[in-house]
């Protein structure tokens, strides 16, 4: 419908601005867009919004755009489009109605009624918004118990999180993916020093033959050295202690379990 009065015009700048998503929303005397201006103007007619005179509204709007344009050189495209469109609508309303509407265009009166309805709807929503904001609000006007005893009754299967959080989580990861540098996890090793110290502390408990696997620590979390590292370091430490004469080690055959036992003749000279 609008194509009829829209000659070709390059409008790259506005398009770029629209892509940014922000530039086009210009705050004109507190109006967010043409429809908000129209609503403010329509209210001044002081009639039922559904019965307002669109021709008068069009005049008022054109005057408004004219005034604002003289103050502000760059007027947002939406305002100008609306102005052109209203001028066109007004002209059609003023012309004696043709025998039948041109081709695909609905009658001008219908379009005008439609605009009136849109304004009434926006008006209703603005009033509803005001009504909501003036309701007693939790945390501003009304308050729940300041020191609740925390009785909560929540189904065990209930958990928090909504779709918005889900997609936010998704996007933040996909984004990181783009800027990530590969950082292989450095394997953590069980330091030989630590293994020796630990084994020495354990000596009093190694009164009888104990398998190496039972002596080495067991990993509990992901950030710990692996089980293999624990085993290897504990074995090395035990061999050193054997050399020092504090420990006996025994293996029956290749690949069999290794057993450890504290040596009875304690170098400290404890009573045997």
């Amino acid at each position, binding site marked *: *419908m*609008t*194509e009829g*009065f*829209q*000659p070709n*015009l*390059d*409008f790259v700048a*506005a*398009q770029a601005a*629209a892509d940014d*998503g*922000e530039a*086009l*929303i210009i705050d004109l005397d507190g109006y967010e*867009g*043409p429809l*908000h201006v129209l609503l403010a103007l329509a209210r001044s007619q002081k009639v039922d919004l559904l019965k307002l005179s669109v021709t008068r509204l069009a005049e008022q709007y054109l005057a408004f755009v004219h005034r604002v344009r003289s103050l502000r050189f760059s007027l947002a*495209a*939406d305002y*100008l*489009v609306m*102005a*052109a469109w209203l001028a066109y609508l007004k002209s059609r309303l003023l012309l004696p109605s043709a025998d039948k509407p041109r081709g695909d265009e*609905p009658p001008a009166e*219908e379009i005008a009624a*439609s605009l009136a*309805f*849109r304004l*009434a*709807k926006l008006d*209703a*929503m*603005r009033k*509803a*918004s005001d*009504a*909501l*904001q003036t*309701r*007693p*609000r*939790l*945390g*501003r*006007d*009304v*308050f*729940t*118990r300041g020191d*609740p*005893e*925390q*009785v*909560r*009754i929540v189904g065990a299967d209930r958990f928090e999180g*909504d*779709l*918005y959080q889900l997609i936010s989580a998704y996007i933040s990861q996909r984004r990181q993916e783009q800027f990530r540098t590969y950082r292989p996890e450095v394997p953590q090793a069980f330091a030989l020093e630590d293994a020796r110290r630990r084994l020495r502390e354990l000596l009093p408990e190694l009164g009888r033959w104990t398998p190496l696997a039972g002596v080495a620590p067991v990993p509990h979390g992901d950030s710990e050295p692996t089980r293999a590292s624990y085993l290897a370091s504990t074995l090395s430490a035990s061999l050193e202690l054997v050399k020092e004469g504090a420990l006996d080690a025994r293996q029956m055959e290749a690949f069999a379990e290794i057993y450890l036992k504290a040596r009875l003749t304690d170098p400290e000279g404890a009573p045997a």
Partner: protein
Amino acid sequence: MTTREDPAAGLTARSVEALLFAAAEPLSLADLALRLPEGAEVAEAIADLRRRYAGRGVDLVEVAGRWRFQTADDLDYLMVQERQEPRRLSRAAQETLAIIAYHQPVTRAEIEAVRGVQASRGTLDVLLELGLVRMRGRRRTPGRPVTYGTTDLFLEHYGLAGLADLPGLADMKALGLLDMNLPPGFSVPDPSRPTDAASDEDPLDAEGAEEPEFVQDFLGGGDRQDG
């Protein structure tokens, strides 16, 4: 105004009173029943308590289908110490919230159609982040646009028992103002969008492809002819 002195009913009312006082969040009738002896008349107890608390410093109110005690709204001036300055919603966000509340489930395009402006960044997502609004699903129309609705938190925040209690809802319905099928013949001309783009168009693809050309009168088209 003598209340029945049925001991069982009295105990139920006392229990409900105690539970609601102690609770950290609103409780439903089912929540309450769960913690009371079988067969307890929870709804009656609530009605009884509402009567007792009417006009007092503390009210028993229904929010999002659940019950909670809250301070009487006319005493708000006393509550300076408790008041937390809630994040102020922009005018655009407030309007968007109202449109979602009254029209849900509603698509982004429909919100924009009512407001006549494209929703800027920070309107819908602020509401989503605050947990007042949620994505509900997709409209079963071509393009399957995501639909939005309000959350229980919205109702709790504004002290509404349910969506039916939205102020002015019945009047608007009667006037047909909540109809999303806007009458044909008028749509806000939007320079960033092809006017013919049906709602099944993916807005991303719609951009850039074919721009509506317009308003020669206002910007003066002659200069460009050379190109």
